[in-house]
């Protein structure tokens, strides 16, 4: 069965520090999708990135970057020069065969 593990329940960093959120997944499938979502204190779920299993290129979007490594079944998310507005719960998710499975989330606190 597929599984998504976000081992970091809660992280606190001081503003402007870099922070990496870990995501490890388990699957025997060769075709799947991985996602990251952000849930700020206001409660909505915001899509950040989608990556399919055949595309291991790392991605950078502004201060956000993602490192996908199939060899370690990891899809980690790094925020560079963090800002207070980055404070949120971040979810990693896995999709295969019509099912999306979310990790338990990492609550990120950016301290001013």
């Amino acid at each position, binding site marked *: 069965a597929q599984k998504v593990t976000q081992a970091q329940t809660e992280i606190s960093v001081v503003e402007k520090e870099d922070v990496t959120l870990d995501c490890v997944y388990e699957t025997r499938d060769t*075709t799947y*999708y991985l*996602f990251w*979502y952000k*849930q700020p204190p206001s*409660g*909505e*779920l915001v*899509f950040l990135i*989608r990556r399919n299993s055949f595309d291991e290129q790392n991605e950078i979007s502004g201060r956000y970057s993602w490192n996908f490594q199939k060899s370690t079944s990891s899809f980690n998310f790094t925020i560079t020069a963090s800002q207070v507005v980055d404070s949120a*719960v971040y*979810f990693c998710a896995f*999709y295969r*065969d*019509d*099912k*999306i*499975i*979310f990790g*338990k*989330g990492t*609550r990120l606190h950016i301290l001013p």
Partner: protein
Amino acid sequence: DTAVSQTPKYLVTQMGNDKSIKCEQNLGHDTMYWYKQDSKKFLKIMFSYNNKELIINETVPNRFSPKSPDKAHLNLHINSLELGDSAVYFCASSLGQGRDYNEQFFGPGTRLTVL
């Protein structure tokens, strides 16, 4: 121009009551979903519909009954509400499924409190 909308945003009700949450998407997506987020923020899929047909039913009590009158709407009706049903319920939609799957877009959530 809200993409995925849910009503109501907040719902407070007594145990034993029946209530409904409505969801509409104007994205032209084929697939819609209901998720439950508990107090620990754990998100779990409940149902998914593709073109008005039930695709996923994740061992949800049969007090929960989704209804999709058309592919732009997926409503959730809950009978005999229990304390444990208190949660935030999110509706979502996506274009395609399987190999054609794209990311899900979520509604703003409905916070249900059962007293």
